[in-house]
């Protein structure tokens, strides 16, 4: 499974969401709230073996933005 497939899978599993991921933003769907955000961050950390900085967790405001943030951790999506 590629990093992109893993990344997509995490969003789909975390939020049980089958819509357009490229357009997905924080609070764009009900389940991506503050609790969902923490569960998403934990799943990303576990899957990619990284530990996200607080500033990056706060900046992680969309599916697209997340790709840029993960690149800082050498996770190329």
């Amino acid at each position, binding site marked *: 499974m590629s990093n992109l497939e893993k990344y997509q899978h995490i969003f789909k599993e975390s939020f049980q969401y089958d819509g357009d991921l490229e357009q997905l933003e924080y609070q764009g769907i009900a389940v991506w709230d503050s609790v969902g955000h923490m569960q998403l961050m934990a799943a990303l950390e576990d899957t990619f073996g990284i530990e996200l900085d607080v500033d990056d*967790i706060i900046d992680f405001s969309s599916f697209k933005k997340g790709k840029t943030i993960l690149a800082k951790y050498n996770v190329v999506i």
Partner: protein
Amino acid sequence: MDLPLNFDINGIKACQRNRHPLLFVDRVFDVIPGEKASGLKCFTYNEWFFPAHFDDEPNVPGFIQVESLVQTFIMSFLSKEELRGKKTNFLSINNVKFKRKIVPGDTLTIHATLQSFRRGIATGSAVSFVGDAPACSADFVVAVPDILDQFKPKSAP
């Protein structure tokens, strides 16, 4: 601070926000903040729910047993200085098992373990006993909203 910590009812109320008639742990002991906590809950017939559950066969409702477990569980992290007094919310309860009826005169002993506490989300479990007999057990995921809010994305309103 000498470990383990012990809390009487006032100490418990200083750490968590549950209050009568929904505070279901009387004493908390053997607390290692960030790791574990144990609790005692003594049930007498003066509890508000016994006359209603049931008038001919008083026993502790299941949801109250679960509250006793989780109120002990949250002491495993709310006993940390920086978390004392914060409110908590359930995120999930899994694998709940009830092994015996709890009746007036029973004392519930609860042992809770914190598996992880990361960015305001606590995961762990608790088991309870009446004497040596297993009574109830469950796995919990509990949130501390004040901590979660510190990690909200900037775009949040």
